[in-house]
């Protein structure tokens, strides 16, 4: 069994705001092995972005508070690392492709400046010091890898001069420039229109296959996830409710929430308009005492409202957090 690259154990993150304390992440457990491709799906607001931001510790620490848990990257806990080690990881091991490219790119700097600086720092970390010429060459190379036309001219442009799809590819390029073992793609397709979505996802797939990096792909689109990853994690209200190899999850979803999600996708084969999952995400200030999905679950039992289920292994690498199975 290949070693664990990333092991998130029992992560709990709270946010303190005016109305009280939002207990967002509730014992999140995610494991990623070397070379493995992992998908993370869930509704908007369920804590996916918060989880990945915590991995490289770019959450704004007040108001966020990490109240419990460990994040082991290659055995070392990133939550306890000092800045120097953390920066090493950021520069050559883990990188994030952000969800909203217009927000993630500093509007007053040229693309070339930002990309150049990222490449410079990343190379320095690897021990090489590059000249301006070399940095420029590398920048053009990275931009070519993400299939951007006319990279030389692009370096001189500002983010506001680019289209949405181009910006997203620049973000991917930036992540590639400092990527190593783990790439995290936070909903890279959400802010794009349909035709570009497909291109960007294919691009990511190709790059990941070529470089043999691990990836955590967060997405709303189940189809995107299905085609790209080996294993899927389902998240609801800050809790991991199910995880399984992709094929198993889609052919035999166990958790009622995953079932509901998969049923919500309209099928071209007909059958009418599917129902959604009635209800909404719980109030994070007073989350349900037991299972967080229980209020919306059609198969809820009395025990579901009282205590919180943990992830149990049901069959071949298929884990569920539900009282219907095991415990």
């Amino acid at each position, binding site marked *: 069994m290949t070693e664990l690259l990333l092991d998130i154990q029992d992560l709990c993150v709270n*946010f303190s*705001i*005016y109305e009280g304390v939002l207990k967002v992440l509730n014992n999140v457990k995610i494991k990623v092995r070397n070379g493995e491709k992992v998908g993370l799906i869930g509704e908007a607001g369920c804590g996916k972005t918060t989880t990945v931001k915590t991995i490289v510790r770019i959450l704004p620490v007040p*108001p966020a508070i990490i109240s419990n848990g460990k994040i082991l990257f290659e055995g070392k806990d990133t939550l306890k690392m000092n800045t120097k080690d953390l920066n090493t990881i950021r520069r050559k091991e883990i990188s994030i492709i952000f969800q909203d490219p217009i927000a993630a790119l500093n509007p007053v700097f040229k693309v070339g400046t930002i990309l150049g600086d990222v490449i410079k720092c990343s190379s320095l970390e690897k021990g090489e010091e590059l000249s301006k010429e070399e940095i420029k060459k590398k920048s053009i190379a990275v931009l070519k890898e993400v299939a951007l036309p006319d990279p030389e001219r692009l370096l001189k442009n500002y983010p506001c001069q680019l289209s949405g799809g181009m910006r997203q590819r620049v973000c991917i390029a930036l992540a590639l420039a400092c990527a190593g073992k783990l790439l995290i793609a936070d909903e890279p397709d959400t802010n794009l229109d349909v035709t570009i979505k497909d291109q960007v996802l294919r691009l990511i797939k190709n790059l990941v296959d070529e470089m043999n990096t691990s990836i955590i792909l967060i997405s709303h689109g189940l189809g995107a996830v299905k085609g790209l990853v080996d294993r899927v994690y389902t998240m609801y209200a800050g809790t991991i409710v199910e995880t399984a190899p992709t094929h198993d999850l889609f052919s035999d979803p166990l958790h009622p929430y995953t079932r509901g999600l998969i049923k919500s996708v309209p099928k071209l084969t007909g059958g009418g308009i599917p129902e959604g999952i009635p209800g909404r995400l719980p109030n994070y200030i007073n989350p349900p005492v037991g299972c967080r999905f229980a209020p919306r679950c059609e198969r809820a039992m009395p025990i579901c409202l009282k205590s919180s289920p943990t992830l149990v292994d049901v069959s071949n690498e298929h884990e569920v957090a539900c009282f219907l199975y095991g415990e």
Partner: protein
Amino acid sequence: MNKENIKRNWYKFSKNKLSVVGLIAVLTVSLTAIFANVIAPYPKHIEWFTDFKNAKNPPNLQNLFGTDLMGRDVLSRTIFGFRYSLLMTVVVLIFIVPVGTILGLIAGYYSGTRVDTGIMRITDIFLAVPSLLLAMVVCAFLRPNIVNSMIAMAIAWWPWYTRLIYGLTSSIKNEYFIQAAEIMGKPTYQILFREILPNCFSQLFTKMTLEVGWIILAGATLSFLGLGAQPPTPDLGTMVSEGYKYLPEYWWMTIFPCLAIVFTILGFNLMGDGVRDLLSAEEY
């Protein structure tokens, strides 16, 4: 504004201790100004009054802030000074806010036309020199007294409101709900006052609160230079200008009015900041 809203707003406002301090200062100054007749120990001293035997006394039990050159009680004059400062501010605001807002609404609504260009060019002309300087110049052309300094400040300050409202109106007027109102045939004045204006309230109110400090500052400066209130009016700026030539021996004649000015402006600025934080959109 129901009870829950008020409580929530108060919580947000009071989170910043300094804003609460500002609110207390403003209330103190306002109450002092309103009840000046009752609070001041020697109310007669604000007019032509001389008592040379008691002149130039340092602060003592009878005159907590000392007496000035004419023997007048500095404390009483300072208390009445608050009244003049606030009066000036209120009068100036009563004039500039409606005028500036209406012009801004019209210019913004008809933006792109000659009405817009006309109004905004006039605004630009008035803002071609710093407002305080313009007020000083207008004062110089008129007889120096408190009413004329109010007129001067009104003439210098109205364009700011026009600009603010113009900016807001020109962006709001492109929103769908305005177009809907136009299609429905609503008369223009209703669109301006019932649809657009309420959306400007929070920024307008914030600006007004922060502006009070500037107006008091400008008024004090005008009086200090001799362009505003004249003796024996106990305007705070005038008191400073009368007294500062006698520094450092008779320091109390100048320092106490100075402190009063700073206290007032500081209070309004602190409170205004709290109001601005309250009214601007906030996440955690």
